[in-house]
């Protein structure tokens, strides 16, 4: 049996249930693809040596009568999500040899379901970046064109799925870190409602923004992973259950914020977007123009709030209890020395930026304003979503760029222009492939992003399926 690794999770799950294939065969198909591609794509920072053994145990569990749809399915796990007893480095020198002391709640749920963890996926260091070029262990490469970036920060997770090195993956999304690489690699990526998936065991970056989310080949597969990992958790006080937000009645209307699409988007990306809108129309949705007056400020708010939170969260890495520890002339010098050598340039830049916007004298002008504007933005989205089922935009203004192309940090940040809003407002959002555009003789995928009301993931998936 060949190319088992190219199956979707739903397809593989059916074959496993019917006894046509085993998890060992499925896992071996992924492992042999990894052996072929990982040396050039740098998708995985570590391929777990016991993946076959995990698969064998899953086959035994099935033989003993278990039947979860993810039982025996090989998944890639972003390197900032803890699996007990395994290394987890956040693609940073700071945690190069750090071993997780407990399971993330999402991991625990996947273990109960019986997923196979095939390896830890490359990422931007501490999830800071939109291209995976900030990994301390080298950039992951895009399977559609290895001279181009995967997107980020969950670049390895996206490339693993797109390159058929795993059937699905977990990533984390603070400002688009699941959706943007999913768009660049031509797969589906989802950011759940804030709190829908427990962050216990996810390394914190921006705590009011972070969510763990699935990356998969189809909307159905993403939904399957999401349904498995979601749920309220006593270990994450921000987590919610499915009943936190009231169920909604479908309006069969889609909101298009055309005022955001007037400039900065490449022409052929826009053409695909219009074609996707037509598809929704023919599926029976009415298109409605909506206005989100504060949305043009979203990126500015994000690059105040995220660094403020990240600089606070990353204060724990001081080389005292774990991680890279270097000696200087004094205690304070020990910290500064360990943090300089442990963190890469982008992480240090964001820590300094966060320190700046939180410092006395600048707090009101930056952080205070950003918090006030965030509230207004959330209200605008909520109002728009009273009229429509979903808001749509392209996921990114352009397809994957070449490695090294964007050396200016601000140019890199502008990629997140459409994705940060959902993190600021807590709404769930999904990126679905909407075709490919040609660049330098290569066909590169682009994505369309759907945003729905808090807790309305069912609509996210149902509209997403119309776009496949």
């Amino acid at each position, binding site marked *: 049996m060949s190319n088992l690794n190219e199956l979707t999770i739903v397809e593989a799950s059916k074959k496993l249930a019917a006894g046509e294939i085993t998890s060992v065969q499925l896992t071996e198909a992924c492992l042999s693809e990894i052996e072929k591609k990982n040396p050039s794509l740098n998708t995985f920072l570590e391929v777990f040596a016991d993946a076959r053994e995990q698969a064998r145990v899953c086959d035994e569990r099935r033989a003993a009568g278990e039947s979860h749809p993810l039982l025996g399915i090989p998944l890639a796990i972003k390197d900032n999500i803890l699996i007990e007893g395994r290394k987890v480095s956040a693609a940073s020198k700071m945690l190069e040899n750090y071993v997780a002391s407990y399971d993330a709640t999402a991991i625990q749920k996947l273990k109960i379901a019986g997923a196979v963890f095939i390896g830890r996926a490359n990422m931007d260091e501490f999830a800071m970046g939109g291209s995976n070029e900030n990994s301390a262990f080298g950039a992951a490469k895009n399977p559609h064109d290895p001279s181009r970036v995967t997107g980020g920060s969950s670049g390895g997770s996206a490339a693993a799925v797109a390159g058929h090195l795993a059937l699905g993956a977990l990533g984390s999304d603070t400002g688009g870190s699941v959706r943007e690489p999913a768009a660049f690699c031509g797969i589906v990526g989802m950011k759940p409602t804030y709190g829908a998936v427990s962050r216990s065991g996810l390394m914190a970056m921006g705590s009011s923004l972070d969510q763990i989310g699935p990356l998969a080949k189809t909307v159905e597969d993403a939904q399957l992973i999401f349904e498995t990992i979601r749920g309220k958790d006593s270990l994450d006080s921000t987590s919610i259950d499915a009943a936190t937000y009231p169920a909604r009645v479908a309006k069969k209307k889609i909101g298009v914020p055309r005022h955001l699409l007037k400039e900065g988007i490449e022409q052929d990306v826009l053409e695909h977007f219009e074609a996707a809108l037509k598809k929704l129309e023919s599926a029976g949705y009415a298109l409605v123009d909506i206005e989100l007056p504060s949305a043009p400020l979203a990126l*500015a708010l994000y690059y105040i709030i995220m660094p403020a939170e990240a600089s606070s969260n990353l204060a724990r890495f001081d080389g005292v209890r774990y991680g890279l520890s270097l000696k200087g002339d004094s205690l304070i010098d020990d910290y500064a*020395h360990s943090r300089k050598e442990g963190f890469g340039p982008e992480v240090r830049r964001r820590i300094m930026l966060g320190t700046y916007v939180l410092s006395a004298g600048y707090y009101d002008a930056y952080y205070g304003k950003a918090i006030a504007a965030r509230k207004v933005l959330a209200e605008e989205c909520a109002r728009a979503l009273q009229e429509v089922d979903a808001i749509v935009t392209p996921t990114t203004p352009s397809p994957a760029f070449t490695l090294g192309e964007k050396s200016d940090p601000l140019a890199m940040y502008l990629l997140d222009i459409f994705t940060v809003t959902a993190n600021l407002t807590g709404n769930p959002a999904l990126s679905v492939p909407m075709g490919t555009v040609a660049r330098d003789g290569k066909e590169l995928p682009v994505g369309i992003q759907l945003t729905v009301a808090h807790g309305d993931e069912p609509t996210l998936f149902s509209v997403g399926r119309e776009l496949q």
Partner: protein
Amino acid sequence: MISREEVLKLAELARLKVEEAEVESLQKDISSILAYVGQVSVVAGGNTSTTAEELPPALVRNIMRADTPRAGGDLMADKEEVLRSAFPTRVGDHNVVRKIIQKDE
């Protein structure tokens, strides 16, 4: 553009060492990012510290629980050795840290 001294002060506050060669590029990068995010100055309000009550409940909620000791069932129960094994400098069961309180000389 933010000054060289400001960059050095920020680095100190952030407990980061910066190389001499980095200072100029940090001045440039941080200034251009601040110029961009400075767009928020058009937003009304925000000049008094915003309280959690002013934010949508979905975004910021304080959640309290009783501070009661939990025997067993604790996530980190039996994990002492795992945590100790991560110590950068370990002697026996102890994490060796630098002396910070010293006698007056």
